[in-house]
């Protein structure tokens, strides 16, 4: 059993490890001329930029995500039922699209900026450190919102009633009880947001803000050195791994299990008067800037410019997007669940390191990871052709490979919420199940899965929306003719036709509503029964 579990974990881990190793193998061929140049003129500035960005976005998503999560999970105020799902919507908007919309409104030539300038108000430049931090915080806070909210909801009312009975004020309950207990969830979301920040290329390019990732692409596209780009990407991923292991080590010494019964009604503090209005206003402002404003602009473009591109082919694009994200989600979430569960069965530093490495694909710039995936596939195909086993390439351009590629990219997205959910389930439950002879996969299926419902749904919704938006892997591994909505967005934006990209972007958002809606239903259901 033990050996089998290790084999399963190892098998899943290989999906991510192979591309990572292919990319890391580039360190064998350093190019001293390019490295000298990067060290002298490129890296110093962008290292500082990257540190600022990660720091700023980290604080930004925590402020926005935890506050809105707490308000919608543990408070009652006007509009809460709308905000609890609407605040997730920015997830479905690719950050680079929001970035472009923002420039169109607030940059020096933006319509809002020009309008304000006529009345004598000059906006500070948005293409700045502050601007990009604000934009990415508004785009990525839903990761924290989602996982923190799941954590707060899972804490149950009795815990807070006990805290209240011990004389803790409302703010003390938040700071001393709810927040520390929610740490695994919050960290899970924060990790996702920061990994995405590090790998983010589209929005920082629109803002022309140089980060480690822009240097990776500069080395590749400008200096024609995929090798140097791979070396830089490996460094990036190595730092992320170190951070993940340190965090995991710190967390491993504590236990976070909550003694809630499934279906316990959530704790809801009824806000009164101005506090209630303030809560509504805060949520509304976040929602306005993160979603309503960009989507209004996108809808306007889609209506005025994009509608001429609308034809029957959009059924195909939408179907491809849905199929890929649907099957991709099932595949990734299943693997993540197996990974998380095995880690629970066989805890220890070695296992933790293994699962952490499996999630690193999310911190790797997408196009580099796509190449790392493609090279071994093409190699396998070529080997099989050389031995006469097949006539033409078989693996590349097959959907099964695409699904595995998504697993390499999005393991973190599915694994982090599931792992956070698992830490909330007390080990006593496992032992009780063991006593009743419920072990192995049976235990996962009958005991853990029902308790993990919200976490699994969270993982699924995040993965689904992320695959809908995914570009580099889809571009590189799709079969001929398998264009998706995200590919459409790429076709338009790569020649600067942003207005025409609005239509496919809008359809992505509409499709993204589906998992968000299912998640909200599922959460309600889990709490009601």
């Amino acid at each position, binding site marked *: 059993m033990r050996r089998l579990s290790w084999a399963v974990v190892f098998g899943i881990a290989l999906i991510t490890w192979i591309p990572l190793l292919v990319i890391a193998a580039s360190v064998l061929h350093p190019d001293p001329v390019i490295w000298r140049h990067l060290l002298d003129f490129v890296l110093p500035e962008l290292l500082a930029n990257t540190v600022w960005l990660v720091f700023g976005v980290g604080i930004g998503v925590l402020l926005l995500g935890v506050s809105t999560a707490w308000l919608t999970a543990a408070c009652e105020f006007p509009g809460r039922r709308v905000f609890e799902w609407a605040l997730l919507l920015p997830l479905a908007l690719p950050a680079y699209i929001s970035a472009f919309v923002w420039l169109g409104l607030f940059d020096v*030539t933006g319509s809002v900026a020009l309008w304000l300038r006529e009345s004598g108000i000059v906006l500070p430049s948005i293409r700045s450190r502050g601007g990009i931090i604000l934009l990415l915080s508004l785009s990525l806070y839903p990761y924290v919102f989602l996982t923190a909210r799941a954590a707060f909801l899972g804490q149950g009312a009795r815990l807070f009633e006990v805290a209240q009975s011990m004389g803790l004020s409302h703010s003390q309950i938040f700071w001393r009880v709810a927040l520390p207990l929610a740490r695994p969830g919050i960290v899970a979301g924060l990790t996702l947001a920061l990994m995405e920040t590090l790998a983010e290329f589209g929005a920082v390019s629109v803002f022309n803000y140089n980060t480690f990732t822009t240097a990776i692409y500069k080395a590749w596209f400008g200096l024609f050195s995929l090798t140097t780009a791979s070396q830089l990407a490996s460094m990036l991923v190595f730092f992320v791994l170190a951070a993940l292991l340190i965090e995991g080590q710190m967390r491993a010494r504590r236990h976070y299990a909550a003694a809630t019964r499934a279906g316990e009604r959530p704790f809801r503090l009824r806000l009164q008067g101005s506090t209630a209005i303030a809560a509504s206003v805060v949520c509304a402002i976040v929602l306005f800037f993160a979603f309503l404003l960009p989507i209004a602009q996108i809808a306007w473009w889609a209506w005025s410019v994009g509608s001429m591109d609308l034809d029957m082919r959009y059924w195909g694009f939408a179907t491809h997007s849905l199929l890929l994200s649907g099957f991709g989600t099932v595949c990734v979430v299943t693997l993540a669940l197996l990974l998380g569960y095995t880690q629970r069965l066989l805890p220890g530093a070695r296992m933790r390191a293994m699962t952490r490495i499996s999630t690193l694909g999310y911190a790797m710039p997408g196009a580099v990871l796509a190449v790392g995936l493609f090279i071994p596939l093409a*190699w396998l195909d*070529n080997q099989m052709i050389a031995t006469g086993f097949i006539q033409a390439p078989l693996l590349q351009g097959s959907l099964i490979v695409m699904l595995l590629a998504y697993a390499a990219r999005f393991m973190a997205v599915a694994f982090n919420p599931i792992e956070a959910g698992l830490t909330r389930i007390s080990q006593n439950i496992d032992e009780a199940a063991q006593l009743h002879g419920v072990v192995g996969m049976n235990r996962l299926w009958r005991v853990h899965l029902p308790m993990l419902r919200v976490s699994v749904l969270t993982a699924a919704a995040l993965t689904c929306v992320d695959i809908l938006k995914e570009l580099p892997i889809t571009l590189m591994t799709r*079969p*001929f*003719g398998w264009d998706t909505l995200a590919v459409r967005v790429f076709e338009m934006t790569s*020649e*600067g036709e942003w207005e025409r990209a609005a239509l496919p972007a809008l359809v992505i958002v509409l499709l993204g509503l589906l998992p968000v809606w299912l998640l909200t239903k599922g959460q309600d259901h889990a709490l009601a029964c």
Partner: protein
Amino acid sequence: MKLFFCRFMAMVLTGLFASAVHATVVVYSARNEQLIKPLFDAYTRETGIAVKFITDKEGPLLARLKAEGANTPADMLMTVDAGNLWQAAQEDLLQPVVSATLRQNIPSHLRDPGNQWFGLSVRARTVVYNPVKVKPSELSSYEDLAASRWKGRLCLRTSKKVYNQSLVAMLITEHGEDKAEKIVKGWIDNLATTPFPDDTKAMEAVAAGICDVTLVNTYYFGRLMEKKPDLPLALFWPNQKLKDPTAGVHVNISGAGITRYAKNKGEAIKLLEWLSSAKAQNLYADINLEYPANPAIKPSLQVTAWGDFKQNTNPISEAGRLQVKATMLMDRVGYK
């Protein structure tokens, strides 16, 4: 559900065997779907030969060709700049094509000296200015924009875009690296604001009075003026009156080459020749307001209205060869 499953499996299988179909030309293209599909459709109507294509960025396409090696399904590689074609030839991903038609249709400075790739349309990078603030007589050349009288009056797009990298590569070809560096440094000193992410934004800044001049590809100008004809913007053709006979407006190409391991080489060459012919050149260029690479073909009326100009006739392959140098030069002078 069962039907759905069957359909999915069918799609998986078609996906699996998609690359095994024969008697079609397969193209890897960095030129957008909406720019090439009408062309390929027309070719199929005319000849009955199907064209399959897949789009991606140049970098990943090159990496893909390299990884696939001798078993690549691709017959043709199409890009929107010379640098990546040059790089593909360097990495031995293309093969020379001996074709009298191509030699005749495409001027020698717009194709590879080794015949590994050919320009199919020309993208001119020129000066756009605000006629309210600048008289055309004040403008002369790219080099002149480094002069101190343009201080605080210039806007530029980011150096990460290949169009600017090839423009600077041209400066290196003409002046050598030291002088080119001084010129680009002069531009940076003259910037009114930090570089923009695209040409359109830079032009909008000129129109809004934030700066007076910028450098853009003409089709962005055409597209913007189509949408907002009232903007105070005008085109100027720089480097027309210099002594150097090769001097002129910097041009890049969108072009294509035949892959080293093309399975349908003959068909692919026929497609390439057709793309350079009178029949296809207008379709290829006009759809994006570019200039036909074939000098016998007139551009669209909208483009013709911008007036005639002399192209820089230094071989465009130099832009590829010097791209790395140009990128490094721009990093050194702090051009972001």
